[in-house]
């Protein structure tokens, strides 16, 4: 998993944006959704998650706001912006292109 996660880390932004595309969410919920989606094979470390949040916020791709839960637990929610949406689709296209190229390059007749 550790080797794979290095590769995946380069796509943290896309992964987070994909989650936010389905609606506003907060740190734990986003990470939980990622874990469930991958059957527990992948999860983001908190440090990675928050670095990405700040970076995306700085880029203006996401915005954050503090929710006001009555239970006392205040969570910071994230919401994708129009700019974030555009960039998500751009990143997705880039990934699909890269995957195609890598697929073509790493496979040989012998490994098929």
């Amino acid at each position, binding site marked *: 998993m550790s080797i794979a996660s290095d590769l995946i880390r380069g796509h943290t932004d896309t992964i987070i944006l994909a989650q936010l595309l389905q609606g506003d969410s*907060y*740190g*734990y*919920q986003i*990470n*939980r959704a990622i874990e469930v989606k991958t059957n527990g094979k992948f*999860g983001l*470390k*908190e*440090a*990675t998650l*928050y*670095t990405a949040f*700040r*970076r995306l*916020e*700085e880029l203006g791709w996401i915005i*954050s706001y503090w929710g006001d839960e009555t239970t006392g*637990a*205040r*969570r*910071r929610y994230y919401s994708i912006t129009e700019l974030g949406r555009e960039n998500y689709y751009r990143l997705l296209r880039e990934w699909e292109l890269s995957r195609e190229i890598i697929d073509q390059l790493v496979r040989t007749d012998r490994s098929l």
Partner: protein
Amino acid sequence: MEYRIKAYVDELFEKAPKTQQAYEIKLELVQNLLDKYHAMVSEGISEEEAFQLTILNIGDMEEVFAQLSESPGVFTVSGSETFLEKKRAALTAAAIMMYILSVVPLIVLSSLGVFEVLGVILLLCMVAGATGLLVYSNMTKPKTTQGPEAVSSVGEGKGVDQRKKQLLKAFRSAYWPLVLALYFLLSFLTGRWGITWIIFLIAPALETVLRALLFPSDK
């Protein structure tokens, strides 16, 4: 066990920059970890194990701190900063408006020929209020223009310097409006407009003397 999680995060954040942003991330992280912990406990994992698993995958917070000190005050801090700037601008504008309008009651009342003393009192009150606003807006200024990084790096000696600068700024901004107010006050009271302009000759000299007396170490 919740206390243990909070204490653990406290320790992690000892090296964090002392900014609003870092504080908010800390709150966020604590809540995130508590959510994670409670979810595990409700799945039947023992408290101790859940705690260990919770803190296991936090990762390297240095990464986050490094990012924070790279771009100090970009989000929430900058938001409140522009808010403060707007507030200061509004205060200054209000103060100047009060200076200009302060002569109105006096003019109106003296042209009516009644309650001239009341006009003077109103003028003085408005000038005092306006000066107060200017001083206040200046005293609150330098702190926020430094940016969060500087807050932690300012030594004690520098702090005194800063305070002096603040006072000097406040003095500067209050002095000339007061001179102007005095000019109008004397002119209206005595009616000797031909002489009172001399105030503007005396004022600069007086300013230099006052500054030398009040802020001796200022170069």
